[in-house]
Structure formats: C-alpha cells, structure tokens
C-alpha cells in the first residue's frame, strides 16, 4: 500500500506519523488529568501503527490498532472513570525534577549510542510476508506462543478475581 506512494509524499506521511507519535507521548505524560493522558497514549499508539506500516509489518500494525487501541486503551479509559479522575496531581517538585533529569540523561545517552555506535548498513532492508510470520510463530516459537497464551489466561483470571466485589466472594 505504502510502496505505491511516490517519494516525497511517502516521506511526508512518515514524518507526520513520527510527529503524531512523539506529540502523543508528550501529551501522555505531561497533561494533568489522567483521562487526557490515556487519550494521548491512544494518539501515540496510532502513530506507531502507521510507522509499523513503513517497517513492512502490516500485521503488527493491525494488531497494534486492535489490541492496544481497541482493548488496552479502552480498558484504561474505563479504569480512569471507575477510579477518581480528579486524583491526577503530579509528584512533588523534587521528584518531578529528578525524573526529568534522569529522562534527559537517558535521552542524550541513547542519542550518543545511536550516533556513535550504530553500524552503517548498506544492504537493502529485509521484509517478511505474513506467511513466514505464521510459520515461525507456530513452528520455531510455538512453545513461547503457548506460554504467552497461558500467561494471558492466568492474567485474565487473576484480574477477575482481584476486581470482584468483596461480598460476591463469600
């Protein structure tokens, strides 16, 4: 789909998706109200799904939309509404400053690593079809696949157990 776009338009769409992702991430951590944070997360995840399309991973892009935006983000919005949405104050100034300092150090450290340490690639990027993905998922990594299934089942059961009303237990 994206390979049919001509060069400049393709780059413009890519930059738009990058901007959406970065802006959504900023909104998700800086806005005061948690409800808006969750909406910022939705924006960021949507931009990431677009970027996955550029990485030739359409299956992952669709999953990102379905699982993250369709399930996780909606679950978060409901939880914000179930808990007190007004309790959104930030940490006291010292902790906030320390967090910003640590994140800044990490950011510049990662940039340094990327620019100094990243090997230059000359070979063409590789892409995998959905068929290879399925064969690998149910072939080589079938054990991990089943383990993730069990982990999801246990997590869901635990979530039901935890969120049950106390009087319903007895």
């Amino acid at each position, binding site marked *: 789909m994206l390979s049919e776009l001509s060069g400049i338009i393709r780059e413009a769409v890519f930059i738009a998706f990058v901007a959406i992702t*970065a802006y959504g991430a900023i909104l998700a951590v800086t806005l005061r109200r948690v409800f808006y944070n969750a909406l910022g997360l939705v924006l960021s995840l949507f931009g990431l799904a677009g970027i996955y399309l550029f990485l*030739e*991973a359409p299956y*992952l892009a669709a*999953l990102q939309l379905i699982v*993250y935006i369709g399930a996780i983000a909606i679950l978060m919005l409901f939880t914000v509404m179930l808990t007190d949405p007004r309790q959104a104050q930030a940490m006291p100034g010292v*902790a906030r400053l320390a967090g910003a300092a640590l994140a800044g150090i990490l950011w510049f450290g990662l940039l340094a690593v990327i620019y100094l340490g990243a090997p230059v690639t000359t070979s063409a990027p590789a892409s995998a079809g959905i068929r290879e993905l399925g064969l690998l998922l149910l072939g080589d990594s079938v054990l991990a696949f089943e383990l993730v299934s069990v982990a999801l089942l246990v997590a869901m059961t635990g979530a039901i157990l935890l969120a049950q009303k106390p009087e319903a237990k007895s």
Partner: protein
Amino acid sequence: MSSSVTTYLILSAFLFATGLFGLLSRRNFVAILISVELLLNAANLNFLALGRFLVHDPARAQVFALFVIGLAAAETCVGLSLAVLLFRTRGSVLVDVTGRLKG
C-alpha cells in the same frame, strides 16, 4: 528518512525517555501504567526496526514484538484491576497515599 534505521532508533529513544519521565513523575497509578505502555512500545519499535534493517530477520523480530504485545495486554489487565481494587479499599489511586502494602 523512512529507510534509515537512525530515525526509528531516535523515535524509540524519545518514547523510552518520555515513558521514564512519566514513570518517575506521576502519582496516579493509572498514569504510571500509561508510562509503562510507552516504554514497552519503544522496545517494540526497536525490535521491528533492527529486525528489518540490521539483523535481516524481520519475521523473528515481528514474532518478538507480538509476544511483547501479548504480555503487555496481560500486564495491563492485572494492573488495572489492581487499580480498581486499590481505589475500592483505600479510596485513592495515588501511589504515595496508598504506599503501605501491609493489610
């Protein structure tokens, strides 16, 4: 730009730094979970970009990202029900108010 691995790595580093800032600077339990999602997505983006451009094994990278998404769903599931439980028993989801874990 869309065919250079550096762009993806920089975006991933930005997401990770933002998520770390949110993790350290928020008091609301749900907001902290939101930051954790940002961290996990930064890792996913790295998996996909490096799998495509450096390792040349994109199928395996996508399988990895798939597992990360599945485990993130499990983590959110438990975390959010914990938030609901916390709010019901303590009346607050601020982590410094409800910091004592003993019953």
